[in-house]
């Protein structure tokens, strides 16, 4: 008895699966992605393509725009770095210890997810202004947080913290106590265990948390504009610059800045994903 080879050939786009619903789930996914992500992004690029080369350079790479990119990406990077450290400590404390008020701390971590960003911005601005609760002591030391790039970093740190904590938490919980005990029984001290065993195992998740926090920071608008002071060339973020261009009906310039940001963000996420894929292969 022979089976004819051609009788059961399926479409090359789809492998046979026992799980139903492939058509509808992928269909809805692609429709929604198109409507919500792809078409608006295409529109941005289309709008920017109305500019000729020099015009695009002038709008997208003007000194003011360059200063805004530096601030947006720089501050987001700084904030994500701060979050990577403190988020890891927070996740560690939440996973490893039982303490009084843990549910409250747990809820506080999620607050930046839920709080309207403008509320956070106003609160932070009030706190860090030279006459605010924290700002007055900083001012006494000759430091100025609000209305400077430092203020931007503070706002972005607030916004990005939960990304690191919530990404690391499940991985830390998953990291069995066995592995640490094995290291201890082999003679490793606390520092060695953390440095050689725990941190490397956390690597991929850590990078993901950092990337999410960073990506969130690059795009953040609401909380930043209240605390940044928004001085051109100094404390003006790129998203705000886009809004300013839009308010002046300068749609093509706004689109040009958006395209530059889009390309930069895309490039960075690509790099981070590549590193992750490489790291994940080791820890499969």
């Amino acid at each position, binding site marked *: 008895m022979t089976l004819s080879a051609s009788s059961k050939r399926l479409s090359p786009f789809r492998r046979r699966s026992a799980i139903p619903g492939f058509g509808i789930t992928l269909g809805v996914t692609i429709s929604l992605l198109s409507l919500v992500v792809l078409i608006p992004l295409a529109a941005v690029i289309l709008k920017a393509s109305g500019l000729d080369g020099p015009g695009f350079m002038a709008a997208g790479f003007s000194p003011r725009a360059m200063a805004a990119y530096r601030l947006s990406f720089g501050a987001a990077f700084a904030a994500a770095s701060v979050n990577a450290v403190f988020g890891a400590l927070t996740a560690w404390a939440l996973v490893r210890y039982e303490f009084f008020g843990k549910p409250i701390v747990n809820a506080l971590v999620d607050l930046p997810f839920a709080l309207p960003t403008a509320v956070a911005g106003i609160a932070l601005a009030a706190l860090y202004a030279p006459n605010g609760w924290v700002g007055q002591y900083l001012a006494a030391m000759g430091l100025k947080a609000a209305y400077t790039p430092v203020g931007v970093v503070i706002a972005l740190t607030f916004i990005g913290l939960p990304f690191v904590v919530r990404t690391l938490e499940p991985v830390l919980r998953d990291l*069995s106590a*066995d*592995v640490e*005990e*094995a*290291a*201890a*029984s*082999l*003679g*490793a*001290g606390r520092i*060695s265990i953390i440095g*050689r*065993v725990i941190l*490397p*195992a956390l*690597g991929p998740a850590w990078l993901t948390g950092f990337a999410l926090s960073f990506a969130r920071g690059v795009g953040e608008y609401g909380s930043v504009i209240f605390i940044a002071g928004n001085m051109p060339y100094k404390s003006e973020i790129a998203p705000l610059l886009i809004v300013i261009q839009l308010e002046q009906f300068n749609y093509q310039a706004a689109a040009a800045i958006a395209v530059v940001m889009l390309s930069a963000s895309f490039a960075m996420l690509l790099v981070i994903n590549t590193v992750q894929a490489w790291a994940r292969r*080791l*820890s*499969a």
Partner: protein
Amino acid sequence: MTISIRAVEKQFARYPALRGVSLDIEPGELLALLGPSGSGKTTLLRIIAGLEFPEAGQVLFDQRDVTFASAAARQVGFVFQQYALFRHMTVAKNVAFGLDVRKAATKPARAEISRRVDVLLGLVELGGLGGRYPSQLSGGQRQRVALARALAVSPEVLLLDEPFGALDATVRKSLRKELRRIHNATGVTTIFVTHDQEEALDLADRVAILNLGQIEQVGTPAEVYDNPASAFVCGFVGEANRFEGHVENGRFVSGAVSFPATTASGPKLGFVRPHDLTLSVGEEAGFDLHIDRVIAQGPVIQVEAKTTDHRRIDAAFARQDVASLTAGTTIRVTARKAHLFDPVA
């Protein structure tokens, strides 16, 4: 190194895990801690390793009190049930870990470490796989890596927690032989935890049987099998038919079952191993068994049967002793050997 455990007690939140356990382990010995789950065997192993600390009692390594010494300070090799390998390190790095983390003064040279890693990987028959990551190995291979890693620090004691628990039967058997071979080659005092009596009896020099946080018996596999010290040991090690009854006029009687007994009269728990049941000959008193099923496999014929009062009995006969047994017939048997214990109050 002699390990002495003196009256160790350990309490977990709700229940006592160990209730006054004392045990001496001789240098170079291969000892099994055998018991059902919840008997405290793993807790005892972890206390010896320094991963858990007792509420009372002492742990002595060669008369040196290490009760509260850290795991790192004890020079023990520990092998975990789930291997606990470092997933981000190669096999060679895993094995070298214990040497790599040493302080500069006692750390061997790089070449020495890599030579030792090669020797150990050879010992566990994983030569040439040093560059792989744990995710690229099978379960049995991972367990060998864990073993090599534990041996790398030249431990005075090797402790294994259910070392073969997560492996399939074939791999388990071959690793068992391997562990015996490695034990013979290194001579390191070895203690392993298992709930599998066959594994314990097969592998260990001596077996310590734990139940409910206490040691029931310590002895060679033959001793615990032939002369169980308690009803628990008798029922747990090897198969046995269990009867509740009493001894009267030199006979143990339990319903329709009766066989000769030498103990004093009174209520008793009787255990008879399947192969200690023999066909009763002539006028010798015995009891009847109704045969339900005959499993004629290999040199031993196993029989599932019922007493006349409908209790299930397992029996085993040497093939040459019983010419033919068929299901549905009745045979008369007696016990050539039985273990009798006072019932627990």
